């Protein structure tokens, strides 16, 4: 079920270094929101705070609120493991589990969480692979290793794996940066379909991609090395690209820096 995310006053730290400062933004359900900005501006860090993946790295810390509908993900008694089951994630490089077959990879989220039952697993695997536009390519070799697929197929396998646990939100951290243009196009088509059911947040380096796939775009920036990243503005994508309200956004989009 697609849900709304409300971020307010969010800061994240690596040890004593503040990576992002005072971020507040809203992600509407069933939309694609793109995070853009120069390298090191903290857009990936913001993404990783949304499903509490940030704290997987030792010595990290988060301040502020992330509301998923009306639940504060950083509130007392919230289990980060359960949060990640609700908010799925796709990474920069395709990372299927090398010891598992295609089928097992898609079923991994269910199996590893201790869900049993063969028949409905079959159904979920097929449904997820169809959802990731991969079913027709792999239906005859579900028991072959996931590592045997091409890079683009592997990434779609990872998307299938993420949606198999029916998350409320799907986070994508530069999902196409390791792929060729044709595979990139396939993933972008897929994102357009997926937004009918999921709330999607995508980090991208590629501004054309942000313009193509997203409904809303958030621009992040840093003042200099060692300074924390900040949200400059978030708005409807056409507006950001045609008529941004901030000078820095315009400079970045027109290629004057970054």
């Amino acid at each position: 079920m697609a849900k709304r995310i409300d971020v307010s006053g969010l800061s994240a730290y690596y040890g004593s270094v503040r990576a992002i400062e005072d971020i507040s933004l809203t992600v509407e359900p069933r939309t694609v929101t793109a995070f853009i900005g120069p390298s090191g501006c903290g857009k990936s860090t913001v993404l990783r705070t949304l499903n509490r993946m940030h704290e997987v790295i030792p010595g990290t810390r988060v301040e502020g609120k992330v509301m998923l509908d009306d639940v504060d993900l950083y509130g007392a008694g919230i289990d980060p493991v359960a949060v990640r089951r609700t908010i799925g994630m796709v990474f920069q490089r395709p990372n299927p589990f090398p010891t598992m077959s295609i089928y097992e990879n898609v079923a991994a989220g269910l199996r590893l969480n201790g869900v049993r039952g063969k028949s409905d697993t079959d159904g979920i695997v097929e449904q997820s692979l169809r959802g990731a536009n991969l079913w027709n390519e792999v239906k005859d070799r579900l028991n072959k290793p996931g590592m045997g697929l091409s890079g683009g197929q592997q990434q779609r396998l990872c998307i299938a794996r993420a949606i198999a646990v029916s998350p409320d939100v799907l986070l994508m951290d530069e999902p196409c940066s390791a792929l060729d243009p044709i595979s990139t196009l396939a993933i972008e088509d897929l994102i357009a379909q997926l937004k009918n059911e999921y709330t999607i947040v995508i980090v991208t380096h590629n501004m054309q991609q942000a313009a193509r796939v997203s409904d809303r775009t958030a621009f992040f920036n840093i003042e200099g090395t060692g300074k924390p990243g900040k949200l400059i503005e978030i708005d409807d994508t056409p507006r950001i690209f045609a008529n941004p309200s901030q000078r820095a956004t315009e400079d970045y989009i027109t290629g004057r820096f970054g």
Partner: protein
Amino acid sequence: MSSDTPPVLAEPEGQAPEPVRARSALTEKAGLGDRAFAGSARAAAVFILVIMAAIAGFLIYQAVNAISQDKVNFLTSFAWDPDGNNTNGVPTFGIAAIAWGTLVTSVVGVLLGAPVAIGVALFITQYVPRKLGSFFGYIVDLLAAVPSVVYGLWGLLVLDRHMSGVSKLIEDVLGWIPMFKTNGTYGSSMFTAGVVLAIMILPIVAAISREIYKQTPREQIEAAYALGATKWEMIRLAVLPYGRSGVTSAVILGFGRALGETIAVAMVLTTVPGLVTRILQPGGNTIAANIAVQFGEAFTTGRQALIASGLVLFLMTLIVNYVARLVIRRSTNKAGA
């Protein structure tokens, strides 16, 4: 996961979940398995520390016990008679002679073994195709798989016969140096033991050196070739300097291995009491071999004295291994700066 909180994915589609459900789904505690697992991993880590501490405690206790009964200086005496067989029960023992023998055999082993090992590593990494190189590497690694008792058997019954001729030749050429003089008999000597040790440390030194030489940066190799260097000049310009500290520490590690080798040395050497300085004639002893040879006839004080000597051997290998690590660390610091 209890049955009244099904996984989130089971929520019926198209129906807004009530907030209370959502909250319970996010707060469920899967943490028990995590804590139990982390706890047992931690317990295992603590357990081996406790065992090590207990063992060290017992070892030092036995050693101190023996040394307190010793009637001569433990560090400087040449005698080894802890049960007082020749002195009416007065324990007299020291490690000077056996520590000397340990050092001499190990130095001979390193002097003979290290150059061959480094040559093998260079040949395998620089001169033969990669596939053939890893095949040769595997074959040389097989030397490390041979049990030391088999080295001992071979050294005693095969190698030692051939060492007489070599030893005689060395005496003829270098006999004017006291160390290489003999009483006319050869073999079962510290030199033979050194040769066996050289063979035993060869595979480990070769394996580490091989890994290091393999990592020589391409740019440095190409830079040397671009200056018009021959292959050997390239190796001297790029490969050897790059590997210097790593290979040095490999050689030191090999030395540490040689210090502690027991059974092969015990089998090859004809042990005689006291200090032996002539390395080509029968005789000599090492700390480790002394333990293996004396243990059967040792009584209470004798065993404790052997434990004390083992503690000294342990300290020697600790220092050697520490130096090896220091060499590596200093060079990586330099590279990082």
